[in-house]
């Protein structure tokens, strides 16, 4: 986790440098335009505008701040929880970093039922409200069926 934190601190530093470069560059380019105005190319009396391009300056600056958030959070988590991730080891393999995928049903009809219920519900709202009532019933049954699929029958714990 230490490596992850460091990576995000590096990313934060990169965004700070990029922001400085972007801001300076936009001022330079703007002033170049200002010089053409002095030479009479730009229409006289038009507002030259702000020398800083605020949209990009803010976006890159916020990217730096958000990288710092994640880096700070990872550093704090590392200090309180500890633990060595594969990213911290030089001899780790790619598949050592496989995340815990959680539990997924090998197959289930409930998502298909739920999709059909939702389709009926919204089709009913669009073309005839009587259909929506059937859709609500199918949706409710399949939602409960899906949520409790592994909580009853063979799988009851």
């Amino acid at each position, binding site marked *: 986790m230490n490596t992850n934190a460091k990576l995000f601190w590096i990313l934060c530093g990169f965004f700070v440098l990029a922001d400085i470069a972007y801001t300076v560059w936009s001022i330079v380019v703007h002033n170049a335009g200002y010089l053409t105005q002095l030479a009479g190319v730009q229409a006289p009396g038009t507002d030259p505008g702000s020398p800083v391009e605020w949209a990009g300056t803010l976006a890159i600056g916020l990217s730096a701040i958000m990288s710092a958030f994640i880096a700070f959070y990872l550093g704090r988590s590392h200090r309180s929880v500890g633990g060595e991730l594969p990213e911290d080891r030089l001899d780790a393999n790619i598949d050592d970093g496989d995340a815990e995928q959680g539990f997924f049903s090998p197959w289930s009809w409930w998502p298909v039922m739920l999709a059909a219920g939702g389709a009926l519900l919204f089709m009913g709202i669009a073309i005839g409200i009587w259909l929506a009532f059937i859709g609500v019933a199918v949706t409710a049954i399949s939602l409960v069926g899906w*949520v*409790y699929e592994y*909580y009853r029958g063979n799988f009851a*714990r």
Partner: protein
Amino acid sequence: MFFAGLFAIYFTLRSTSPELWAAETPKLNVPYALTNTIILVASSFTAQFGVFAAERLQAKRTGWNPVKWGMVEWFFASYALGAIFVTGQVFEYANLVSENVSLASNSYGSAFYLTTGFHALHVTGGLIAMLLIIGRAYSVKNFGHKEATSTIVVSYYWHFVDVVWIGLFLVIYVLK
């Protein structure tokens, strides 16, 4: 992203027709909405205490004292507070419609009901999710990590919906 779009609708209409806002916003009952907001924020706190209980893998209470409550009791409390919030919204809508602010009355009405209405739908979805989580706690003999995880996931959703409402409340009722 979805709510950002709704906020953008609200801000755009506000900037193009300020006179409509001047005419319609005095009809809002701000103390009433503030009370409702406090109820919703309180439900986030009770939901978080439910998460703490779930992380102790404690589904049910060991006494009437809230310190001894389990996840189920805290989520029932959150459900009650959330349900009071939605009921309060319904009464507020009824009052506003009686003052001729409706979805079809003008662009202020459209923006108001779209933003708060979609939020209320999300709250209702969260209420249903809480009931399903409470049901899971009752359907197992041993409340385990799988049930605790689903509790935490629903609480994340609930906190998100709560934060969106704080934004909506500040924009619609405070800034106007």
